[in-house]
């Protein structure tokens, strides 16, 4: 019973505010350390790829960013839905705090993908299913943020954003599969995103380090933004 009471204790913005600061500080430090370690492994330890040369090293940023972009949308929708269902202010604030970080990672994934595609495929952009669905994901994030920005009343902004995020999260798989089918319908598999199946252990280690760093960065950035939102509203 005491555990349950503790959880609800931190559901209030006022009591969560100092805790968020402590968690955010720890996460900033850990994220920086892990990113340094990950980048070191990625750029100096991991071997050069046999097929793609040095250009492949962008995956140390690209793959974790792409994972986080999709994962953060689901997390955002979850917080938004919690806020809508239980009418807790903190959950809705959490959703609006996550959105810019998610949009940032989506943009980063597209950007690094373009930089990787130029030397590897010979084009910055191809209408591949994954690229297209990532682009639409960016539009969904931007729509969520634009809707919240357009509404002056924070309570209405929270609830409207929550509904949009839930509709979006239901649609994401439908959009993804429609784009996959569209792609296979229009053109053959001229470009495949699947890389060499075997990956050197150091490559994997570097990538996992970067994934952890991005996770911690997301937590730190979201909580820092959450503190700003709490200050602004309460």
């Amino acid at each position: 019973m005491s555990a349950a009471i503790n959880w609800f204790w931190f559901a209030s913005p006022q009591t969560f505010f100092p805790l968020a600061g402590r968690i955010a500080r720890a996460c900033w430090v850990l994220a920086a350390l892990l990113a340094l370690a990950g980048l070191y492994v990625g750029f100096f330890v991991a071997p050069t790829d046999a097929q793609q040369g040095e250009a492949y090293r962008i995956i140390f940023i690209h793959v974790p960013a792409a994972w986080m972009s999709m994962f953060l949308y689901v997390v955002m929708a979850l917080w938004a839905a919690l806020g809508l269902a239980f009418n807790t202010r903190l959950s809705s604030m959490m959703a609006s705090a996550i959105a810019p970080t998610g949009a940032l990672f989506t943009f980063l994934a597209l950007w690094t993908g373009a930089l990787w595609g130029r030397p590897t495929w010979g084009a910055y952009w191809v209408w591949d299913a994954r690229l297209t669905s990532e682009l639409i994901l960016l539009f969904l994030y931007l729509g969520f943020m634009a809707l919240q920005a357009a509404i002056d009343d924070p309570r209405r902004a929270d609830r409207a954003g929550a509904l949009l995020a839930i509709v979006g999260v239901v649609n994401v798989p439908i959009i993804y599969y429609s784009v996959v089918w569209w792609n296979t319908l229009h053109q053959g598999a001229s470009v495949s995103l699947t890389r060499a199946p075997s990956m050197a252990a150091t490559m994997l280690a570097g990538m996992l380090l970067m994934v952890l760093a991005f996770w911690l960065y997301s937590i730190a950035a979201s909580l820092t933004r959450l503190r700003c939102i709490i200050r602004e509203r309460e």
Partner: protein
Amino acid sequence: MIAAARCILRRDLLLALRRRGDVATALLFFVIVASLFPLGVGAEPEQLRAIAPGVIWVAALLSSLLSLARLFADDHADGTLEQMLLGAAPLGVIVAAKLLAHWLVAGLPLVAIAPLLALQYGLPAPLYGTLALSLLLGTPVLSLIGAIGAALTLGLRGGGVLLALLVLPLYVPVLVFGAGSLDMAAAGLAPQGQLQLLAALLVVSAAFAPWAIAAALRISTE
């Protein structure tokens, strides 16, 4: 409940009949957008035939956006919407009736006029059936999904542009399956698979969208 739905349907159709200009504007927009593409990309018949499905469908998407912006705005302005929210009839049913009326005046005319555009683009005659059927299945989905956005952006500044930003990404599956069915038919394949997927989208959105729209209206008007 049925009586309320019938009443709303009658009222909205009557209102649309009294203001025929609104209906004609969206329809004209559809025709103009589709007519601009040949001026931009050149008039080679082969090329026009290749881009026709996409152009007609994108024009339908944009035209549906244009008419959706007005869907709840007038009722919101004159207080009718508040009465609907307070009334005894379930809001989801009222919304469904409003959407049916909206589709009858904004979606069905697109289906009717699409063969004219197909003629402009030199699509072969056997494709007209597929075009009409895909629009018949797809345009109600556009109304259903778009109305969620229309309800969320009700009374906001810059609502029209915001509506486009919210709704267009969600329209992607309809565009893909709608234009895809025409591409299949043009390539001599059976378009049934794509049309069935469109029908599935229609069933799912018809089941869930009215309740999401009702929730969005409650959020926007409280």
